[in-house]
């Protein structure tokens, strides 16, 4: 007898038009969020805060109420939604530029206030939507369209380790960095996303997941090469792991 082992999550829109580039990890990340919304049965009381960048299109895929934030302001908008409607589940889906460059103040202050929000941040070491420019997470030596000779400290300074910064905030309940380069890591990523929602649902504080992701188009790589880069370069500097979890008893 045949059993269904794989299906489209209920929290994804029907007949959605996929708009991410081939091999981009955004698609996997959005799907994981949808699966978590399904598993926690919170789709009908969730509000997505869409940010600026490729991540904005999350509202084309996730079948939840959504509001779009000005660039960098996602967690300020999220704060407004959550404070107005504390019973809603509010989460942002942001890129690293939105979260950690233009929106660093909003991001860290939301964490410091211990807002009961969940933030998902895609780290692909570049500004994807605008064509692969240097962002806050661009690695030293990495060539982008605005660091054509490679990122050097003299001109550009250092890349930011986002999860570690978020973990330092007293209002953070959970902060983790995950990768989507292997099936095993995708499973771990889903668990982290789930946890970041659970701390919100339990009123414990700010939940955060940084997802290391590919941008094959702007990296000028095949999807396989891109995942290889995640493993070989990104995971060395941006080490996956749980950086804070206040639910863990030691």
């Amino acid at each position, binding site marked *: 007898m045949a059993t269904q082992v794989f299906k489209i999550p209920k929290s994804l829109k029907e007949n959605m038009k996929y708009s991410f580039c081939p091999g981009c990890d955004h698609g996997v990340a959005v799907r994981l969020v949808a699966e978590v919304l399904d598993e926690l049965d919170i789709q*009908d009381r969730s509000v997505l805060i869409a940010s600026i960048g490729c991540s904005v299109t999350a509202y084309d895929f996730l079948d939840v109420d959504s509001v779009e934030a000005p660039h960098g302001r996602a967690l300020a908008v999220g*704060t407004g939604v959550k404070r*107005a409607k504390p019973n809603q589940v509010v989460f942002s889906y942001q890129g690293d530029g939105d979260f950690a460059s233009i929106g660093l103040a909003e991001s860290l202050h939301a964490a410091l206030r211990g807002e009961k929000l969940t933030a998902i941040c895609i780290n692909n070491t570049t500004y994807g939507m605008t064509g692969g420019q240097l962002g806050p997470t661009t690695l030293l030596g990495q060539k982008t369209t605005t660091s054509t000779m490679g990122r050097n400290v003299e001109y550009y300074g250092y890349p930011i380790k986002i999860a570690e910064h978020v973990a330092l905030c007293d209002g953070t309940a959970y902060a983790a960095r995950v990768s989507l380069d292997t099936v095993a890591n995708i499973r771990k990523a889903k668990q982290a996303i789930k946890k970041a929602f659970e701390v919100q649902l339990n009123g414990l504080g700010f939940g955060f997941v940084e997802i290391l992701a590919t941008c094959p188009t702007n990296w000028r790589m095949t999807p396989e090469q891109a995942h290889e880069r995640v493993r070989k370069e990104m995971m060395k500097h941006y080490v996956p792991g749980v950086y804070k979890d206040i639910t863990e008893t030691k």
Partner: protein
Amino acid sequence: MITEDITNKKVLSKGNYAIAKASILAGCDCYFGYPITPQSEIGEYMSGKMQELGRAYVSAESELAAISMTLGACSTGVKAMTSSSSCAVALMQETLSYATADELPLVLISVMRGGPGLGNIYPSQGDYFQATKGGGNGDYKLIVLAPSNVQECVDLTYKAFHLAHKYRNPTVLLADGLLGQMMEPVEFKPYPYAEIDNSDWALTGAKNRKSRVIRSYAPLADNQCKFVEKLFEKYKTIEENETEWEEMGTEDADIILVSFGSTSRNVKTAMKLCREKGLKVGFFRPITLFPFPNKRLNELASKVKKFITVEVNMGQMINDVKLAVNGKASVELIHKAVGAPPSPEEIQSQVEELI
């Protein structure tokens, strides 16, 4: 229901406190702010009162965040506001543009101070352009209400919430340091407007209905054309329904003094002084700066020789008066760059010079 502030008698209140109390009585559910003189009393009052009432209050990390929090709260359909002043309202322009595109009922209290730059904390009307023309991107309008005394700070705060929700458009109460800091007797009556049903658009979770998206991103040019045109149809309706002004002595006037906000108090007195001297001078005060009373000014232009706008800036509203008058009469300016308005006597003598 909050009744403790409804007194049915006059109480002496500072403009900033009057605005804050009125917003409470209007049912403001969420306040987000960042301090700046001369409006800090609003945030100070709200910090205690909102917590006492179990409503939302956040001391935001910046004005960028404060207005974005307000946008977020508004997306759920509640009444939400922020308040600020000049150089910090400048920081809010981007989100105001988003909020118009999102059609959200955001209320902004803007208490003008001197500029440009950090300027100073004295009263000014230098942000007429900022409020009515906008510093944000794209074609949009904010509804702008300009009180001239503390009672109007109350009445127009009520109205700001009402119009914001009625038209789903960001609405600005444009006061200044003079109004914010002065005390006058005011009466806090109950919020006079009916609550507006927003259940057809507010984000409350997609339970037993389709999910909703509040967005401004429109990747297709044709869609965006249609959307902006629709927005402007709404603005036309607002112009038809909501334009408000005060006029006095215009029936037989040769000259009409045009002024808004706190400055108009002195101008009204100057008009009376001119009348005492036998000059046929009238007074006209736009209460809504958008929608601007173009039609009425154009009618009056057929009967009078000259308009003189009186402003505490280098001449901003004069541009709108000129457009409204459209060449039918001359339009001149009496002004001062920053500070308390020119005295009625100064205005009167300058009017005589301009005749």
